[in-house]
């Protein structure tokens, strides 16, 4: 059984580069200022694991955590 992933954006670190939204639009949403937060509770649906890691590894502010549950 594969482990489940959850993404989380640290709102104090996010500066609105919006790379996560461009790379993994299913997993992140932007507020009216363009700052990111995880979609829903951050649970990564099966098949989108790669996008979660890709978003994390392209965030210039190191604001994204991918939590293995």
């Amino acid at each position, binding site marked *: 059984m594969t482990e489940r992933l959850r993404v989380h954006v640290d709102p104090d670190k996010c*500066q*609105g*580069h*919006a790379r996560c939204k461009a790379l993994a639009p299913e997993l992140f949403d*932007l507020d*009216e200022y*363009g700052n990111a937060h995880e979609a829903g509770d951050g649970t990564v649906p099966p098949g989108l694991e790669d996008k979660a890691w890709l978003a994390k590894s392209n965030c*210039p502010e190191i604001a994204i955590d991918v939590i293995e549950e």
Partner: protein
Amino acid sequence: MSDVSQPAAHPPVTDWVHDFDHTDPQWTEDPFPIWDELRAASPVVHTNRFLGCYLPTTYDAIREIANDTEHFSSRRIIVRDVRKEIAKNAAPPITSDPPMHKPAKQLLLPPFTPDAMKKLEPRVRAICNELIDDFIADRQVDAAARYTKHIPVRAIAHMLGIPESDSDLFVNWIHMILELGIKDESMLLQAVHEMSAYFSAHIEARKNKPTDDLISYLMNARDKEGNPLEDSHVLGSLRLLLIAGIDTTWSAIGSSLWHLAKTPVDRERLVAEPGLIPTAVEELLRAYSPVTMAREVVGETMISGCPVKPGNMVLLSFPAANRDPKMFPDADKVVIDRRENRHAAFGLGIHRCVGSNLARMEMQVALEEWLKRIPDFRLDPAGAVTWSQGTVRGPRQLPFLLGKAM
């Protein structure tokens, strides 16, 4: 102001580690080996030029400074020969420090979200095609003069609600401020004065007849107490949008086309796989980041083990950070499908470029439309590519031959 200086001649640099100068012709032409040399010497180097200035050379040192607003102020953001008095509301939020920074920034962010840029995209696509229509029948073109130069200025004019036909005025002011102004204070003052007069007239006109554009948006904005912004704040932010929105993306599009003109394998791949263009844009932003920012040291501290003292400026070279091999494998190579790319082309920390979503959209659209219509092009060996000097680096002459090589 009484201390208007004459343009100063800078002696050529012979010792980069102790006497660097980002206006030296060698830096303008090919800065990459210089950054490698300086990075090998120290994470932070210093020059006595510009009344004293540090240059952090590693990604880590640059990140540290960008995130330290206590010791590094944004009240001066261009390294010049002179330090003139600090103007109130110079160009908020880029010239603001906490706690003034956040409200000024939040005001500008909503019109520049990715969703807002999607609405502007069709106009930018049309601008690109109108420009291409004008020269596609020719066998050769200066892509800087005929294409890259016009895209960002027309897009920002469209957003501001000022005539796109005033573009040449804006381009000239930017040149006077960002390039000539480093050494010739009078050029800078003249451009700022003319620009302020221009925008003041547009603000006045909207007081009687509001419009649906960015100028009216700023005039209608209210602070937390419900008060409108002072005219000088509106003017400062307009100045910022124009200065920051033009040269920068012009340079980024130009460097991208320059790279593709001399790298057929990358060009052919993007023509065949246009879906890769957004990824390639990130890599081109990393490898040829146009914008170098600055800070003023306002408190003594240590950066990557190096002492840093007040009274000096800091040249915050995001372009050099993006070439740090400790951060990016094959940092000196353009890898157009690079998957992991935490580049700092739009800055790091609270001063992340407000227009980053606009710049990315313009770059993607400009490359898509160009490659669709002009899949084959190369540098014209009879012409010379020239680069802008100073704070924003990009090609200012870009002679291409169009069509397949005979």
